[in-house]
């Protein structure tokens, strides 16, 4: 989902149309507060914010600070849209984790390419978040088994090394695959690489 935060309705509308023309879902917000009120946990589909710096009620930087404060940042990439002369501010924002900034007037399709990249990054961040959550559900013995599986050891070797029976290893392995929501060891390795 692309979130467009700009006080100018025409701009919101035009950017939404542009996103739509590239098959992206977009939603407009007339001000920073309206956006902060409705934004929630990003999903795995990926999110991205186009944030206008100059807005009457709450400027873009203030909105950005709030997003950082809520810990949403890596999963909710922010692309600033700046007017003339806001470059130092934009550079500062980049240092603090903004995804990119575009100075008006911008090349629309270049902007949309960056939006695509931002959405991908958002998705990746969302996935790694979920993997971490799943790993957290494993018991200590299951983590030991997981490490040995990822090292490419056969069940027999794992049982020997841990001093447990083959049967037990297989039960652990099933639990791990279940908790990590994967079907094969290859899939597991891909998830955790």
């Amino acid at each position: 989902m692309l979130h467009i935060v700009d006080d100018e309705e025409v701009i919101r509308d035009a950017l939404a149309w542009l996103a739509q023309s590239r098959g992206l879902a977009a939603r407009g917000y007339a001000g920073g507060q309206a956006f902060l009120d409705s934004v929630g946990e990003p999903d795995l589909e990926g999110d991205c914010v186009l944030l206008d710096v100059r807005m009457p009620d709450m400027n873009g930087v203030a909105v950005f600070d709030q997003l950082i404060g809520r810990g949403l940042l890596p999963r909710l990439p922010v692309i600033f849209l700046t007017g003339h002369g806001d470059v130092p501010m934009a550079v500062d924002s980049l240092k603090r984790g903004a995804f990119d900034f575009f100075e008006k007037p911008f090349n629309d399709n270049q902007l949309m390419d960056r939006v695509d990249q931002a959405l991908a990054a958002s998705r990746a961040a969302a996935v790694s978040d979920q993997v971490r959550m799943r790993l957290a559900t494993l018991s200590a013995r299951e983590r030991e088994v997981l490490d040995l599986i990822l090292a490419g050891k056969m069940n027999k070797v794992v049982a020997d090394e841990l001093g447990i029976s083959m049967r037990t290893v297989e039960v652990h392995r099933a639990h791990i695959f279940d908790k990590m929501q994967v079907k094969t060891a290859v899939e597991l390795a891909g998830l955790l690489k």
Partner: protein
Amino acid sequence: MKNPFRLPRRASLSRPWRWLVPLLLVLLFLAVLLWLPWQARQMEANERQEQLIADTLWVEQTLRFELARSEEALSVLGADLLVKPPAPEQLQARLDQMFKNGHELRRVLWLGSDGTTLAHHGLELPPGGLASVGAEAMEMARLTRAGRYTEPYGASAHAPGMIDYYLPLFRRGEYAGALVASYSLKVLLDETVPWWFAQDNALALLDRDDERVAARADGGPGRGVYTHRRALDLPGSSIVLATDSVKGSPRLLPNLLVGSVIVLALGLLISLMSLWRHISRTLAAESALRQQMAFRTAMENSLLTGLRARDLEGRVTYVNKAFCQIVGLPAEELLGKKPPMPYWAPEATLDYEERFAKILAGTVTPQFETVFQRADGVRVPVLVFEAPLVDSRGEQTGWMSSILDITDRKKAEELNRQQQEKLEASARLATMGEISSMLAHELNQPLAAISSYTAGALNVLERADKGVPIEPNLLRRALEQARQQAQRAGQIIKSVHEFVKKSEPQREEVAIKSVVDGVRALVELQARKSWVTLQFALPPALPTVLADRLMLEQVLLNLTRNGIEAMAELPPERRILRIAAGFDAAQVSVSVIDNGHGIPPDVAERLFSPFFSTKAEGMGMGLSICRTAIEFHGGTLTHAPNPGGGTVFTFSLPRRDVAAAASATGAPELK
């Protein structure tokens, strides 16, 4: 500071002595003067007294002599009577003779030894016979056998007294009678005493009781001051001659000399007193003057205003401390100086000389601003007030000037002006920046929107190529939006154009002279600040032009400022900026000519391009704007090197009459 009105210092130590000595002398003199007439009077009195005594003695002698002569005659007669008595007729004749010789003799009796009257001549005997005093006198005379006088008798208020003389006659020792002569004392005095003595002295004969028996006072009664008594020393009589001078005691100022000396002394005293009063008044005045002077000196020294007095020839006669500070020279180097003054700045010499010539001619500019050069070369702008200096007789002796150092004021003015200019410039810049920023923002929005809509539309078309079906409604809406935004942008530009149009120049008929006059004050201010001499050469009959006055003033200000700044490196006396105007059949031209550094060729190429500047703080807009402004009026702005060094900037504008004629004949109007 040197003060020409300084008073001599008073010697206060000798003050008591100065008065004591003349005072003592005067007192001594007065004492002598008082003593002298007293002494003189005393001497005169003594002298008179002595004179009177001598005169009295002389009178007494005279009286005695007269009586003695009479006694002699009687004794001769008595002798003759005893020897041979003459016939009565003879006797009478002889007595007559005696009476003629001495008028005082009033009666003669011849008495026999028995007392009978044998002969009688002169006054009748009074009824009572001879005076009672006579018997005693006759007795004494017979006893002493010598003639004897009686005491005076018969004196009364109306009649003078008489005196008798008894001469006893003896014949061979036998008393044979007596001759009795009676004298009138009054006549005795009248006849015997000379007139001059009687004139000066009252004479009196007194008996033994001091009763007056006869008196003579031709010169009036005596004063009783100088008197003398002298007994006549007649046998048997104690008659006394008393003299009394008619002169009074000598007056206190008996003679002119003493009087005049006293008058002179009084005069001296009075003049001394008045001198004293005069001196004390002078001293009081001097003290007041001294105090006044001290007050004035303190005032002059505390003044921040410089004071300078000059005589009618322009020679400096007085300067105060503040003036010395303003010009940075000690008073000694200024007093007595005649122009050219050491504080004259070379570039303003003409001004000074002009004013000085006026002063010599007796007129003066009461107030003007000028520049003095301090000893260290710094120029000090000053405000000078001149007023005639008039002496106590009301005659003008010179000029008094007060000089105000207005460096700070000038600085403040200049600072103020610069700040004002900066403020205006930055206000202009701010306005320009605001307008352009607003314009950019306003245009950015529709343009960005148009860009996004069209990019999206292209995306849709691209996807259609890949087989994605087109949604015509969506595409139409996007293109409709793009069109609207393009129209909005056009609207914005139109409104800006409207705004700009409002500040378009207003053309009117303008005289070049009025343009020059309009900026003159500003240019002069700048020129004075940079010590540049301005010269104006404007022909009287310049044709007018059709132009925006403010723009022309702006151009002229720009050019003069450039010229003045170009001469900053020159010595002040060579900094001359000329503003000259001229015209031909078609155009009026104005030239601004400086003697500055000129324009190198590489600079000349880019001179009129925007944002080109040779000045550190220049915006590079000046000449570019000037050229635009002049071209806007259908004129030209050119520059050429000044043959004497420097640059000539000339702008030419069409004459109004020519331009009007051109437009009337249908020629394209200059716009």
